């Protein structure tokens, strides 16, 4: 019973970690706007925790550059399983308008695995909410897959 409640809770309590990985702030303020009264993602139990050790979902914005790719990797590694990554905005997806610049690595998926892509320049708050919801779907799939793997053993 506890197990099924935990499973349900994972979907009900996604804690966010937002990392600006070299974004122009556009996506960041939209991500932040999701927390504010008009969008209020706390409705879904979402809190912005700011600490990878507590986070379930990593929201990454921005075109990864050569300095912060290490940071991104560290943060990702520090998040305990199960975790999902959502890349936001054209930059997070591919590097966007900056992808030819000399200090830009490109999309987030060049450094860490990305589960959900939220397009836009910047991604709208609604799209970000969609992205998180999609990520939760992915989380529950991962969970079921893991359970199936355990059962198969």
């Amino acid at each position, binding site marked *: 019973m506890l197990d099924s409640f935990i499973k349900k809770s994972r979907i009900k309590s996604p804690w966010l970690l937002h990392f600006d990985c070299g974004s122009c702030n556009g996506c960041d303020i939209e991500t932040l706007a999701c927390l504010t009264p008009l969008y209020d993602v706390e409705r879904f139990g979402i809190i912005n925790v700011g600490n990878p050790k507590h986070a379930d979902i990593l929201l990454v914005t921005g075109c990864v550059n*050569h*300095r912060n790719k290490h940071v991104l990797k560290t943060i990702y590694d520090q998040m305990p399983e199960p975790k999902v990554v959502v890349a936001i905005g054209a930059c997070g997806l591919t590097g966007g308008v900056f992808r030819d610049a*000399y*200090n830009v690595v490109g999309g987030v998926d060049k450094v860490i695995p990305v589960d959900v892509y939220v397009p836009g320049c910047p991604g709208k708050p609604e799209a970000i909410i969609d992205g998180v919801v999609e990520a939760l779907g992915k989380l529950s799939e991962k969970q079921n897959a893991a359970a199936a793997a355990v059962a198969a053993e």
Partner: protein
Amino acid sequence: MIDHIEDITAETLIGKVEALKKEGYRLVTMTATDLDAETVDLLYSFDKDLALMHLRLSAKKNAPAKSISGVYFAAFLVENEIREQFGLTFEGLVLDFGGALLLEDSVRPTPLCRYTVVEAKPEAPVAGA
């Protein structure tokens, strides 16, 4: 097309900047532009009561330029940036980031030089900066 611009040389730079400071000018910024293989154009911009005043200096890439961060402390940031982007070293930089202000080692040096790439000499980074 830029008003109030004055050409100066490396020798007169510090004296002129000190004089401007005395007159109450505020340093706005410095701009570096790659002119050709040997020279970088340095444009110093100052402001007093909303009026801009510029100094223009053609710096040789292979010789260190004089730093004005001793006069205007705020210049350290832009000088560090120019050093990193153009490979132009500055003499007397008060806070030297040793070429690690913006760029990682993995990125190719002096990215904003259009014509040549000047290898900045590796130097001992200033400790405790």
